[in-house]
Each structure stands twice: as structure tokens, then as C-alpha cells.
């Protein structure tokens, strides 16, 4: 029986981990959608109309109604299309999943980004410390194959940055955070995640990503 999806559009950018999260969720649920690649230096009128508050990607538009902020979008997708749930059923487990996905966005990702892309060495070192602490919390939290258990869930999708973008950043700037000696579970999880059949199809080309990060690093260190 064909599922009634309505009209689903996604505005994103190829290299954005946040946009990729939404694509993974939609693909996992088999939702048909139209993808629009944005140029962030020249944002489309549609993007500005659909996300006037933050003017960012990703934006999901479902039957003409827009939503922004990737974690909000992921929960909406799960609420709307019930197959392959990405959030747990029980309220306590749901609260934990929401807590960890926020932790990834509010603590982990900013620390990692600062550890790589700050001109000031002291700030970089402090952020590297913070990143290692954050990764340790995640390492301790990982009790199964995935954060979601035997299948990928909200936290895995949110943590995709660590599985794919972080190694690319590490290569581009000569940083080492996610070592398999320090974080054996997380390291293994990263490999499982990136090899997951749906995720594999929804990652940007690695060499392009490394190139992008190299350029970003060069512009920061050059402006010192």
C-alpha cells in the first residue's frame, strides 16, 4: 500500500551534517522528498521565506508548512511517519535521547569546532580538552551497537558529525581527538554508523569535505 506522504521538500547543503541528519531520517522511513541544494553565500528567496528566524539549513517543508532546526525536524519526522521509529517509546528513554542529542549539539560540536578552527592556540587547547571530556561522556553512554540499541536512533543520527565530519576535520587540520585507544566503543560505533546502508548513501564525498575544512583552517590561521 503506497504511503500518503504529502509534499515533502528539504532545503540543505551537501556538506552540512545537520541537513544530512534529516536526509538519513527521511530515507530510513522511505519518505519521498524533493531536495534543494542551497548556496549559503546566496540564499534562495524560498529559504529566507521558510526560515526567516535563523536563515539556515536544514529546512523541511511538509505540505507547504516549514520547520527549522534539525533536532526539531527529526522529532517531527518521527511523529509524522511511524515506521522505523528513531525515538524510543518510553517517556524516560525519550527524555534521555533528547538530552544526549542536545548535548551533542550544545557541547560536543561547538567544542570540536573550536578545537580545530580557532586562531588562538590556548583557546584551541582548551577546546580540545573540552572535546575529549565530551567524547568521554558519549563513550560511557554507549552500551550497545548503537546509541539507539540494535538500530540507529535519534542520538546516532545526531552524533553522525562525530562519525564522519570529525575524522575529516582531524585529517584537514592535523588534530587527533577520536582515537580508538581512548574511545574504543565510540570509534567502533563510528564505523558501524558510517557503514549503515542508509547512512552510507547519505554522506558527502570525503575528499571534498577534507578540502573544505583545509580551506577553512587556512583562512583562520592566515588571518592571525
Amino acid at each position, binding site marked *: 500500500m503506497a504511503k500518503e506522504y504529502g509534499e515533502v521538500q528539504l532545503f540543505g547543503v551537501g556538506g552540512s551534517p545537520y541537513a544530512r541528519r534529516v536526509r538519513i531520517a527521511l530515507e530510513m522511513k522511505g519518505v519521498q522528498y524533493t531536495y534543494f541544494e542551497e548556496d549559503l553565500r546566496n540564499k534562495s528567496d524560498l529559504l529566507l521565506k521558510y526560515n526567516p528566524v535563523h536563515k539556515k539549513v536544514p529546512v523541511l517543508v511538509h505540505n507547504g508548512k516549514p520547520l527549522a*532546526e534539525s*533536532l526539531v525536524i527529526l*522529532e517531527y519526522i518521527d*511523529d509524522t511517519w511511524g515506521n522505523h521509529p528513531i525515538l524510543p517509546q518510553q517517556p524516560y528513554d*525519550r*527524555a534521555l535521547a*533528547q538530552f544526549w542529542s*542536545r548535548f551533542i549539539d550544545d557541547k560536543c560540536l561547538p567544542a570540536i569546532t573550536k578545537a580545530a578552527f580557532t586562531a588562538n592556540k590556548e583557546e584551541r587547547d582548551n577546546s580540545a580538552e573540552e572535546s575529549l571530556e565530551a567524547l568521554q561522556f558519549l563513550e560511557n553512554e554507549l552500551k550497545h551497537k548503537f546509541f539507539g540499541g540494535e538500530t540507529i536512533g535519534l542520538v546516532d543520527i545526531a552524533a553522525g558529525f562525530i562519525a564522519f565530519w570529525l575524522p575529516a576535520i582531524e585529517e584537514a587540520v592535523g588534530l587527533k581527538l577520536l582515537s580508538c585507544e581512548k574511545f574504543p566503543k565510540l570509534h567502533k560505533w563510528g564505523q558501524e554508523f558510517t557503514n549503515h546502508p542508509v547512512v552510507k548513501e547519505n554522506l558527502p564525498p570525503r575528499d571534498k569535505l577534507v578540502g573544505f575544512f583545509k580551506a577553512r583552517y587556512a583562512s583562520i590561521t592566515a588571518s592571525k
Partner: protein
Amino acid sequence: MAEEVVLLDFHPSMFGMRVRIALAEKGVKYVHKEENLRNKSPLLLQSNPIHKKIPVLIHNGKPICESLNIVQYIDEFWTDKAPLLPSDPYQRAEARFWADFIDKKVDEAGKGIWASKVDQHEMAKKELKESLKKLEEVLGDKPYFGGDKFGFLDVALIPFHQWFFSYETVGSFKLDCPKLTAWAKRCVERESVSKSLASEKYIYEFVLGHRKVSELD
């Protein structure tokens, strides 16, 4: 089954107030523990080892952290009365989006005034005014952000309204948001809200104390 519900809290905290309101809306009995944030209890450090912050709801020994998570949890667990989140997925997502906006924009801008030196105030005041204007647009002519019913987004924002007096006094300016003022009056008529909010005076005393200790003036 006897539920054991404990709230680790701090009276002037807008985040703590959110949880108090949600628990009151649902008629949940709980044990309230006031934390001294300069000397955090072992229970707090053990229940929220990552952020070490209040509020923390401990339900039958299991801790839940982050105020919006807690409010959502309360809504999902105690379902017999006062639904806070809308039942429609899109409206639910909108409520979450704007609650996140409050945490990212209103709180940050507010901190840029009450917890910052005077030279940082100009930028923060501008951002705060803009953010509140956007929220007034979201409210529109509805009695509550939740529509006809008091809901999640109302719970998320009303504690911040108690802080407006402190923002205005520390920042020496007036927040011109008549729609929010009218909305706040409506919210405070609810017993769950009025008995959960810290008074403007109490909050201001806390802010003054903090500014003194942190040598911000």
C-alpha cells in the same frame, strides 16, 4: 503505585520555574530540594554529572535533566490532565522550535544584561527587544501561545517574564512588549503559575547579589 518525585531546584531560576509549573499543572506531588549553587549537593552532582545544573527531576530514582526535556517528560508521563504539548505533530514541532528559540536567544540576550558588564548591554538589549518582538508575532491575537489553552510554550516563556524587571532595571531601559505583558497577566491567573513563580523582587535581589560577587559593576 507510589511515585517518588524529587525536584532539585533554585528558586529564582526560570528553568526551575518551568518544571514547577508543569508539575503543578499535572497535580503531581513532589519533594522540593532547594540547591545552593555555590555549594552543590552530592545528589545534584550525581544526578547531573555532565552539566551539574538545576533543574533535575528525579522520578523513582531516575534523573531527567534540562528543563524543556523535563517538561516534555512530565507531559508524556502524566497524561490524565492538562496536556501541555499539542497533539498535532506540526504544532508540536513549532512549540519546540520556539522553546528552543527562547533558550538560545532570549536567555542569551538576558544574560548579556543581568550577568554582564555594562559595556555588553547595548548589543544584548537590542537582541532581547528583537527576540521578544518575534515572540509577540508568534503569539498574535491568541490568548496563549498554545492557542485557547495554556501549553508548553507558555510554560517555557512565562518564567522569563518574571525576569523582565531585572533586565530593565540593570539595563536601564524599558522592554516595550504590551502583548506579552497582557499574556503574562493571563498566565499568572492560573494557580499553577502564580504559586510557582519567584517574585520579581526576589529575582532582582539574586541578580544584585550575583553582580556584586562577580564584580560586574
